[in-house]
């Protein structure tokens, strides 16, 4: 009996060494060859480890503890979703949000009526108390230093058909200033005279019109269809 057990132990250990525990394995990585038997080759692989994410945003907001919160105080509170938005904004910014932020919240499409009512009420009470609008927190609309006005490029051009395009540039006081433009890579095909371009496109696709006035540049996409 003992000899039978010893023999079986030897066989089991040999098979275990050769075949191991049968279990599904993760995807393969780099191999180093090792022969298991004359007829079957096996490779040993390192356990699979996933690579790092291909893209990581460089944008990061600075987290600071809020000094005050829009949610402070007694009374009704908005929904959990709006509370999350406010907490997130307060922890990533200067810590105090003014009425301008609340006004921008009102433009969201996913607000319930009760949330809208809360936000409107909050704006009202803050303004009544003389609270700052916090306008410095939000990016304002901008009037560029030089305004370029293009005509004839809003609709796609037609291949093979002559097109006339115009451009004018104005400074911040509204004075017209000289402008130069070119089509990078297509200069030989374009007739440019003062602020007027005439071009008969000979391909379907798009190109960029690049203009400059008073050291300010603007690019416009011009499409050509069939």
């Amino acid at each position, binding site marked *: 009996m003992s000899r039978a057990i010893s023999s079986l132990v030897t066989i089991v250990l040999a098979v275990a060494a050769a075949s*191991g*525990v049968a279990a599904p*394995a993760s995807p393969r990585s780099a191999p180093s060859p090792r022969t298991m038997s004359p007829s079957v080759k096996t490779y040993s692989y390192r356990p*699979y480890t996933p690579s790092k994410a291909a893209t990581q945003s460089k944008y990061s907001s600075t987290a600071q503890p809020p000094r005050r919160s829009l949610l402070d105080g007694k009374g009704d509170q908005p929904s959990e979703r709006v509370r999350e938005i406010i907490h997130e904004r307060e922890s990533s910014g200067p810590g105090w949000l003014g009425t301008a932020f609340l006004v921008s919240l009102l433009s969201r499409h996913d607000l319930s009526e009760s949330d809208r009512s809360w936000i409107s009420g909050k704006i009202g009470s803050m303004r009544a108390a003389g609270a700052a609008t916090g306008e410095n927190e939000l990016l304002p609309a901008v009037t560029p*230093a030089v305004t370029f006005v293009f005509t004839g490029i809003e609709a796609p051009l037609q291949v093979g058909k002559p097109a006339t395009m115009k451009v004018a540039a104005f400074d911040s006081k509204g004075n017209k200033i000289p402008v130069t433009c070119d089509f990078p890579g297509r200069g030989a095909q374009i007739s440019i005279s003062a602020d007027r371009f005439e071009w008969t496109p000979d391909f379907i696709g798009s190109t960029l019109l690049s203009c400059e006035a008073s050291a300010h540049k603007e690019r416009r*996409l011009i499409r050509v269809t069939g």
Partner: protein
Amino acid sequence: MRGLQRRMLTTMLITLPLLAGGCAKVVQEAKAADAELRAALEAAKSQKDPLTAYQQLRARKKEVLTNHNPCRESGLLGRVECVEIESEQAFDAELSRLLESALQGQPTAALGWVFSEACDDDEKIVRIRQKYTEALLAAADKSNGNAADKDLLLGAGRVVAKGNGAIRNARRAVSFFARAWAAGAANAASEASLLFLNMNDKRNAYLWSLRCTGACRRDSRIALDTLQQDLSPEAAKQAQKLAESISVVELDTAGGQPS
């Protein structure tokens, strides 16, 4: 002791066939995978277009390896052992040959494929990219911007935006993304938006995120509500108006004044 011996013997008699059976299974899986890969190689001979043949074979190999796993974990250390698939080396050699042939013969389409997002996790293709970055950018610069070049232009924008094998240049990247967008590349608008966001230009990030419509996949970082929160209502409306104009590439705020 006799009782213990009897239990040991019983355990071994049960374990032995299981161990032997596990080894046989992975060998069978390898053989089945081998047969399917050989069949795929044979079928690919009738495909005249090397790029299409390459794409079909690559997808088929992925399918075969998903359906047949010739590997298993061994022992307590988590080491993985695999049985070799006999035809795999020849299969991979054919894949390389087809891709090289495509890059030589149909550079535009092949370059667009090699530099597409679909190949970002393919180590072999990522290595090939280094060799063809210059060719990609040269082809993109010469491109007429027609629909056939949309992936080429998008790939060129991604390379220059990230600075992978080329000098990072946001202005140049935006040019490629804008033209890719005009040519119909689904994710060109989201790529442009992410580029502007990474440069802390939220106005233009918002403008391009507005253009991410239809099949365009919008990353959570450029969700419209998230970007809009940092803009005044007037700034949001300004960007919305500009986004509707198909010729606008970006809002230049250098030297500008709040309006």
